[in-house]
């Protein structure tokens, strides 16, 4: 056991002599067991078993199933890459890809800045900060299915729907919301933003507390406006978090399922059919049990695309993130 230095500082660092290398003890199975290695492995076993059965095994099974034709009742048949070819030849795939990209774009446009703006505003609030935070976070704790059912009432396309009644008060509408291909996706994004913004905002709020107040004071001394402080101090200080939330948002929106599934079932006329909904439809839309091979093939393709996207994104932004 060594004694910790009682005084810390750069000056002392040069005065401390380098520690001599420890003599290496020979590691044998006996020393490994005596050192607690066996206990560690045994402690790990239950978790490994759970991960194996409920995470890794399904992934391996999905890979296997993607090259099979199976209804999970009769014996599967190996079909090579036929499922991948069938998925790529399905015209609905490209509709789903387009719709998913459109959802991602709208979500980025609407959903990405809102939590940031809300967090910045919230950080400036002096009174009732906790109350505002709780109110902003409230949608996150409402069960998603309940929230969607609630919003279905709001989105009622009739003149007596909640939103249409409000719009009617100012002489607008009625808007068909979910009942028209041109407005359905936008309606889904608005609800999804409402549901998720609170969670992201809390992350930004936490990150904002780490921004040194001296930076703002220095900016104020230089005569910076509020906008300049946000642009030159807040955003650069948050860039690490912004980077992560951006990737999480892209990955999340690429896997959007709940909203189109519960609101529109992919309609009207496939205008909200997303990639994950298509995967679901391959597997479950047919009550006889659908095309599990195609469903797993498309799932794997989506996973690979997202993994490659994440890798490239982190690679390209590494210097920015580190800076």
């Amino acid at each position, binding site marked *: 056991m060594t004694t910790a230095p009682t005084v810390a500082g750069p000056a002392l660092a040069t005065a401390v002599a380098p520690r001599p290398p420890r003599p290496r003890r020979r590691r044998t199975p006996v020393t490994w067991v005596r050192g607690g290695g066996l206990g560690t492995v045994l402690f790990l076993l239950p978790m490994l078993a759970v991960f194996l059965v409920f995470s890794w095994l399904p992934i391996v099974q999905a890979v296997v199933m993607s090259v099979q034709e199976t209804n*999970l009742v009769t014996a599967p048949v190996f079909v090579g890459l036929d499922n991948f070819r069938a998925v790529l030849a399905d015209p609905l795939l490209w509709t789903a890809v387009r719709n998913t990209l459109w959802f991602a774009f709208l979500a980025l446009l609407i959903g990405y800045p809102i939590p940031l703006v809300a967090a910045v505003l919230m950080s400036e609030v002096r009174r009732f900060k906790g109350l505002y935070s709780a109110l902003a976070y409230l949608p996150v704790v409402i069960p998603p299915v309940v929230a969607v059912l609630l919003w279905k009432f709001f989105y009622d396309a009739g003149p007596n729907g909640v939103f249409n009644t409000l719009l009617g008060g100012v002489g607008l509408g009625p808007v068909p919301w979910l009942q028209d291909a041109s407005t359905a996706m936008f309606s889904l994004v608005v609800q999804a933003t409402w549901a998720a913004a609170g969670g992201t905002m809390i992350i930004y709020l936490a990150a904002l507390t780490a921004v040194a107040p001296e930076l703002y004071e220095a900016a104020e001394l230089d005569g910076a406006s509020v906008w300049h402080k946000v642009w030159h101090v807040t955003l650069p200080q948050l860039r690490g978090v912004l980077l992560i939330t951006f990737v999480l948002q892209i990955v999340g929106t690429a896997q959007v399922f709940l909203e189109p599934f519960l609101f529109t079932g992919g309609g*009207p006329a496939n205008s909200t059919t997303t990639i994950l909904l298509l995967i679901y439809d391959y597997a*479950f839309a047919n*009550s006889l049990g659908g095309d599990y091979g195609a469903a797993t093939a498309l799932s794997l393709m989506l996973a690979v695309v997202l993994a490659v996207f994440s890798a490239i994104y982190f690679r390209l932004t590494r210097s920015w993130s580190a800076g």
Partner: protein
Amino acid sequence: MRSLRSAGLLAVVAVTTAVAATLTACSGDSQDNADGKTVVNVTIDPGLEQGAIDAFEARVAQFESANSTIDIVPKEYKWEGTTFTAQLAGGTLPDVFTVPFTDGRGLIERKQIADISGLVAGLPYAEKFNENIARAGSSDDGRIWAVPIAAYGQALHYNRTLFTQAGLDPDDPPSSWDEVRSAARQIAERTGQAGYAQMTSGNTGGWMLVTLAYAMGGRAESIDGDRATSTIDTPEMARVLQTLRTMRWDDNSMGANFLYEWGTINQDFAAGRIGMHASGGGNYGSLTAQNAMKPEDYGVTVLPLADDADAGVLGGGTLAAVNAKASDAVRAAAVKWIDFYYMSKLITEEAAVLDAKTTADSGQAVGAPELPVFDKATFDQRQRWISEYVNVPLEQMTPYTDEMFDQPLIPEPTRSTQEVYGLLDPVVQAVLTDRDADVSALLRDAEAQAQALLDRR
């Protein structure tokens, strides 16, 4: 430290053992109980009143006393598209379960249910099934794999209260599509509710489009030997879509929701937001039990048929099937149960009366319109047996019941039925949500896709 490590080791061993034991327990499923009896899992509807549960258990006791080597174990089950898929794939269906006619042929083709045709052939009434009805549960060579236990034809349901509010006579419902259109417009104008609504989602859009095409004299497929040809791009289908388009865009009589499926259209119909819609003729029970529809609001009439020799009503119903994983002993016991529980009430007075009494006592509908599984004489005889327990407003159903037997009943398409219905959903949705939808192009594309599906089979 040593004792802490020992305690940790013990905990690890205990947890590992528990996990292993749990996984082992999940993997086994015995078909014989400790007494050597054959265990058969059968279905009971979820959410029944205690009286209905007691009556079901009494029937189980009767069966077990007559079949001492069989142990009946009830499991809650109700067919729903998505949960059924998961149960089928996960192998967790009961040994005996029910499915709609729509799925019968597909399940048989994929061998996802047990082949009980040899056992069914031995039942005394095996040859007496209505041919059109039996086809839903039969393989291509005519053997019955799944037993038809109930049948219905599509009908036009209407809300009598909305009819009255709109100045229409609820005892004289529309008998042609022109009259449907005119009534829908009047309801929409005078009540502000949807005059006519249509299911469009979850494969029901295709189901209803094919239903209306049948009513116009069309079909969705033609079969020649082993070759199936899609017949979606036809004048009859186009006529249906043009009628819907006119009601939607010219008359504005179809309300504001164009993404209905079976459950949601029933909700809005029961809530008085829909004047008319087409669906199964036997829906009264679920409308009152699940959607709290007021009996006095309910009216039903036959689906108007075009003046065409091929025009008819799409038929549907329920099949009892046996789990593909069941052993031979379980299959034999399962068919005995199907015969005892589902079929005897259709052909023996004692079982018919007991079933009707139990159903009525538990507050469920008795006497809602249905079609005969066997011949009309057997059906009429059963109606007389249960007449004492009928609790539905029969008078309000006479526009349907007076004429339902005169309409030709046409089975659903038999090849890739669900998939074809599914690809027709967006066609109907497009017509109802896009004023400029190109009906010809939509039907042409849908037919090409349907043909690809049929060819793949």
